[in-house]
């Protein structure tokens, strides 16, 4: 359980840190997202109920920070990030035997793809509200680049979290799907 609470703490810290990381002007003002990588690692390392709890927690934080209420209009409904994290973390959770057998690369690539999917889903939601579906080169970069960055940082984050799991003597076996 210590490891689970450690993940909750890391999600909070990363979410706050993201507010202070400026957009990258040399990469079409793309943003850096670390939280999804931590959540996707948690999805593989935690049992199903705790995975849902982590996805819920990260979703609430993301919702609180991204949902915009302008006048009487809500652009992206509260709960949408919880749903996104829940579904994507669920897919990741299903692939945990691969991870347990040492195939990190699949999950690193998927972390990147899923991070971009979150940004794409937000874009589609605001487009639905504002109208005029536009996909320019800049938009594709702003959707794709956070995924590429997440893919690049994922091996380091996964290694760090794996190490933290060992340090806290975390007993859950992802391959067997139960605590040892």
């Amino acid at each position, binding site marked *: 359980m210590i490891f689970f609470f450690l993940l909750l703490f890391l999600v909070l810290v990363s979410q*706050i840190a993201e507010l202070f990381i400026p957009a990258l002007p040399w990469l079409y003002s793309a943003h850096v997202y670390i939280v999804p990588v931590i959540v996707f690692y948690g999805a593989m390392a935690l049992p199903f109920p705790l995975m849902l709890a982590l996805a819920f927690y990260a979703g609430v934080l993301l919702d609180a920070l991204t949902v915009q209420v302008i006048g009487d209009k809500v652009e992206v409904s*509260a709960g949408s990030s919880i749903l996104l994290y829940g579904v994507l973390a669920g897919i990741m959770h299903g692939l945990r035997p691969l991870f347990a057998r040492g195939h990190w690369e699949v999950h690193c690539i998927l972390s990147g793809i899923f991070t971009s999917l979150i940004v794409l889903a937000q874009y589609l939601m605001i487009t639905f509200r504002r109208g005029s579906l536009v996909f320019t080169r800049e938009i594709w970069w702003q959707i794709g680049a956070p995924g590429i960055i997440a893919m690049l940082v994922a091996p380091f984050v996964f290694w760090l979290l794996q190490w933290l799991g060992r340090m806290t003597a975390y007993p859950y076996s992802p391959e067997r799907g139960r605590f040892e």
Partner: protein
Amino acid sequence: MLSAIRYPVSEIGMSRTNIIALLIFGAILGYFLSFGPSTTQKFKSGVYQLLAPFLTSGSGLKKQITSVRSGLKSLDQLEHENSALQVENRELRATNQGLRDVEHEVNRLRHALNYRERSVFKLIAAEIVARDSSTWWRTVTINRGRRDGVETDMPVVTDEGLIGKTTTVSDSISIVLLVSDENCRVAASVEGSREQGIVSGERVTTGLTPLLDLNFLSKQADLKPGQKVYTSGVGGVFPSGLLIGVVKSFRVRELDGQAQLTSAVDLSHLEDVFVVTGRR
């Protein structure tokens, strides 16, 4: 026959605990999805209020890191310039850097104080503590909230011009929707003409200085680069006479004219701002 295909739930990968967890998750998700605008606003402001201490201290930490980094950069340049006087120069540079920071701070605050005194508006001084981390919205967080007299839909300015308006207000911090956001719409008039239109940001901006669009102008407007655009006061949120930006280009569209503006304020380097609470 039926009993032969009725597997125990645990064998098909879903234990009773997992199903219960999934049901609870679904129920809470449904509850969140049912939030209306006012509940969402309360939820957002509540979470921001909880995060306020972290945001404020994070902002201070970021300033310190930036200051140290710029100091180290000077030292590095100094090393290349004169290796013989390296040690002595390093000390002098460090002292100068510290003094320069203080001088910059004094100038900044004096500038802000002067503006506040000569302004025709009642102003609340605020500091930017965080910027929006998301891709699609352009907002900043300021360290003033309901306790300081800030309310929703109050204009936010600097001595150079309009920045945006407050959207979510909690007790000690508020979120400001920048004028460069597509959702921030400001009724505007053009200096030296009778033209009026609506200024809004663009959905996607990639540069450090995003452009603004002035829409719904007449086709005959023929605005010239350099003409200033001010708030017209229509709509009730923004008082008239606040500088929004300067015309960069003008084009005629099928139904109306549209001008692109350069914002009067450098939105990428905001430090101190003022919330307009009314006129004096």
